[in-house]
């Protein structure tokens, strides 16, 4: 189902949780709302679900497949909702939890008991917990509870599945497992899904498209690749992945970062102005000897080769820290020493001008 969010504003007292937000979610895709806490992502999800309303004076609307549902109560929107803390009914068995939406239907829509049994079992099998029907929620692990919550949400046969930080309360390993399981499940049932998360890794791994939110506004909408490699704003750049930030100046087709100068033909204007440079750790390389003006001298402070790549922390003469991520074979080849002076070379960088912060200059590469 297609979801059309148009000009939604929601305030809590003086706090604007959502500020004129519009968004279109396409049939069958899995979209992640990503942002720090307080960015409005959960509020947006709850408004789509009908658990939260828009401001009284707000003219915006929510439409499902072109039908306005702004004033339709949550129970009548045909959405499945998975809560961060599962919200399973503690006094009911797993079976009764999943059967709940079927049992509360109006008499003429209510399936007969045998049908309920069949449907619940089917859903439990779908989430691979068919054997736990008689257990109580408290007897399950966190991951199992969240899968039951998902089965229960699916029992309404939702046209949209909304997930509010569904893995937030789980520990790292279970989270990883459930994440890929959710992706497989989505590929299987293809229901339009919206996932709220503050975990960029989760969003990048699971979603078809990512909506990056900040301070009640949408910063960027795009595929994981787009938002990661072509961030539209400084916020997205800083929020997604680690990044080195430098403040320098730019003008006449040249960017200056202290002693380092870089050709920057996409800014040919004569007047020089301040700019912020963003470089991802993996876009940097370390050289023993300088082979041009593009390099920055820095001192090795710490090395951490534990992991799939090596992280090296350096410090410029001005005291600015730089983090560089090197492939392990490159790291071994260099055999760096602590406190050694080396040169940092940038393979790519992004430049943002402070007064036009929402607009990035094109990336450049050396």
């Amino acid at each position: 189902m297609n979801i059309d969010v148009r000009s939604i504003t929601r305030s809590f007292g003086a706090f604007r949780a959502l500020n004129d937000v519009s968004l279109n979610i396409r049939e069958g895709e899995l979209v992640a709302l990503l942002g720090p806490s307080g960015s409005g992502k959960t509020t947006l999800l709850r408004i789509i679900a009908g658990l939260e309303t828009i401001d009284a004076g707000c003219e915006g609307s929510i439409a499902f497949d072109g039908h306005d549902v702004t004033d339709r109560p949550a129970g009548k929107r045909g959405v499945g909702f998975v809560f961060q803390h599962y919200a399973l009914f503690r006094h009911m068995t797993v079976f009764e939890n999943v059967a709940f939406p079927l049992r509360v239907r109006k008499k003429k829509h209510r399936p007969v008991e045998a049908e309920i049994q069949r449907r619940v079992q089917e859903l439990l099998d779908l989430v691979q917990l068919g054997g736990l029907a008689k257990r109580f929620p408290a007897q399950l692990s966190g991951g199992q509870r969240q899968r039951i919550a998902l089965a229960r949400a699916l029992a309404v046969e939702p046209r949209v599945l909304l997930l509010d930080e569904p893995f937030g309360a789980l520990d790292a390993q279970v989270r990883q497992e459930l994440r890929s399981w959710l992706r497989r499940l989505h590929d299987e049932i293809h229901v339009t899904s919206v996932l709220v998360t503050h975990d960029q890794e989760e969003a990048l791994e699971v979603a078809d498209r990512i909506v990056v939110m900040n301070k009640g506004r949408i910063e960027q909408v795009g595929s994981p690749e787009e938002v990661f490699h072509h961030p539209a704003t400084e916020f997205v750049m800083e929020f997604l992945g680690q990044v080195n930030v430098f403040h320098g100046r730019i003008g006449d087709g040249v960017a200056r970062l202290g002693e380092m100068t870089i050709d920057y033909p996409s800014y040919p204007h004569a007047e020089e102005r301040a700019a912020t440079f963003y470089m991802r750790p993996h876009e940097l390389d370390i050289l023993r000897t300088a082979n041009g003006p593009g390099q920055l001298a820095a001192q090795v402070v710490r090395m951490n080769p534990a992991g799939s790549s090596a992280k090296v922390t350096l410090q410029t003469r001005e005291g600015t820290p730089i983090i560089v991520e090197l492939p392990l074979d490159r790291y071994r080849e260099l055999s760096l020493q602590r406190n050694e002076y080396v040169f940092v070379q940038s393979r790519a960088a992004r430049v943002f001008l402070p007064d036009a912060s929402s607009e990035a200059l094109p990336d450049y590469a050396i």
Partner: protein
Amino acid sequence: MLAFRKYSVLPGFRITFGFTVTYLSLMVLIPLSALFVKASGLTWTQFLETVTNARVMASYRLTFATALLAACVNAVFGFIVAWTLVRYRFPGKRLIDAVVDLPFAMPTAVSGIALTAIYSKNGWMGQYLEPLGIKVAFAPLGIIIAMAFVGLPFIVRTLEPAIQDLDKEAEEAAAILGANRLQTFLRIIIPSLMPALLTGFAQSFARAIGEYGSVVFISGNMPMRTEISSLLIVSKLDQHDTAGATAIACVLLVASFVVLGTVNAVQWYISHRSRGGN
């Protein structure tokens, strides 16, 4: 005794524990055992004769029936009061919240004579109720009202924190799964509040069984008709029949312990089940 207590660096366990147990024994346990020792001094026939005497049986019936009804009234209205006080905002809420404890703070004798004044023939309520044929003072209805009065705070005060702790997400989940508010209330909220409701009900019931001061004035104390068991104990004592008083008291005491014990057991079962035992 090896594992009697866990090691702690804090001082004073021996002396404070020793004092607590000694004082508790002297002040509560020994006096209480006097009751059972005295009762066991009676022969079975004596005991049975006393507690199955027609007037005594009538008092039990009256006491338990009125106490049960009062607890039921409190369960319903106490629930509404607690729900309103926790979930809604309205003018005067703080005052009402404070006054809920009035029955705890007001001496029972005062409540007793006040209720009697209100519900007797010329009282504020009695003057309207009596012409309708509803007799409250000096009738079982009056006993129920007095018992409901003293038991109300038990229900409200045990329900309030439970309502506060209700999982709001569970209510939202129910709504989004298609339940209407009534279904959410009956299937989700009430079952979640059941343990607290049971506790409050039992406390209110147990308190009503033993209640004396607030009931004795309004009941009229007519043998076989409006005489509660507590009053019967007092009149036995006035007649210097300590044995008879003891026998009746034993039955009352055991009854309240059974009520409170049953509720504890039920609660243990509920929480044990939903907390993961098998």
